[in-house]
């Protein structure tokens, strides 16, 4: 279950979290970010590294919106 939440509209698409993610589980386009649930191990390193507090650990799990 994915437990890393991306707060909507806060991401600056800077790539800092992508550079530290050990699983290559974060995909970043020009202005689109997505965590790949199947790869993510919920290690929380991306949460620590985001300079502007966009990522949060949510122990209840995060629903991935497949329509988005």
């Amino acid at each position, binding site marked *: 279950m994915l437990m890393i939440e991306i707060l909507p509209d806060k991401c600056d698409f*800077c790539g*800092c979290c992508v*550079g530290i993610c050990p699983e290559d589980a974060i995909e970043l386009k020009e202005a689109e970010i997505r965590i790949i649930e199947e790869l993510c191990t919920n290690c929380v390193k991306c949460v*620590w*590294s985001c300079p*502007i*507090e966009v990522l949060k650990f949510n122990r209840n799990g995060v629903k991935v919106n497949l329509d988005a």
Partner: protein
Amino acid sequence: MLKEYDVIVVGAGPAGSMAARYAAAKGVSVLMLEKDRDVGYPVRCGEAVSATRIAPFIDPDEKYIASHINKFSLIFPNGTEVTVPLEENGYILERRIFDYELAKLAANEGAEILTRAYVNGLLFDGGKVSGVKFEYRGEPHEVKAKVVIAADGVESRVGRWAGLKTHIDFRDMECCVQITASGINVNSNTCYFYFGKDYAPNGYFWIFPKGNNTANIGLGVGGMIGKKKSALSFLIDFMEKNYPNASILTQIAGGVPCTPTLKKITAPGIMLVGDAARQVNPLSGGGISSGMIGGSVAGEIAAESVKQKSPDLVLTYDKAWHERQGKKHIVYNKIKNAIYNFSDDKFNNIAESADNLPDNKKSLGNVFKAALIHNPSILIDVAKVFVIK
């Protein structure tokens, strides 16, 4: 667009543009793909460079220089400010224009450039990288290449797809936030650095002037700090205390990989340059000029490998970079590790020794010597920098 190129470069930052230019200059066909719609924007950078280090690559031009720097001002935890003249001058760039100019120089050599082209995979031919997959205007494309140069910045995903371990320890990532603000009354020839736990523990806080009372104001903290307090909250605290009435023109986030270069920056058919290879100077966090050097070295080798029909030449880039720059970064990294763990008291002691230097003796070198007196173990590492220079 052709079906096949000699060299494909992924990412049009300074490292990518230099690689594209140096390869194209040797007469091979080059395509550079950039996911953003504009080269040079958004600017995720403090924009400080040494004039001498970029001089071999681009003529000075006021259109990409926001201000000329000839002094550093170091501000220590107890408020002591030590100003030192620089032996080598620097610039604060307008990177939006600078990056664009570098891409133009690549285009002038014959490189093709495509923006809004998001690379999302590699092609392989018997274990060797043989091209890229990308999305362009919503359509998937595949283009073959004899050599792929990954210049995709801090994210560095392209190298991972080729089996290189490019992610770095979160403690080595300087997690940064920066604003460009006006109403900042600082000297336009001085870069200001703040040290200590209130400003930016395991990193530093900077004000880099851009002229007309505007400045880049930002900081980086190591990932270990970010765990407890984000870079953004340090910035908010600083601005409330020092410039509560400043107008904020832009705000950006960013990561600077402050480590020695990756052990392997090549694999069959692929080379990594710039932030993607972790070619940033780990002590200063400056990656513009070192990425440009990496790009130029890789571009030339890639072209030679194509022209001589010798794919193995690509693999010589590991050593070429190490000799040119990489080995210095190993030493800079050791110095960084020592300095970043300085306590506020230690910084204040350095401030005192530095402040006591007579004005005509105030130089970065002498301030550094003052720092060494308080931590002699760094001395060995510093000695090495000079020996292997």
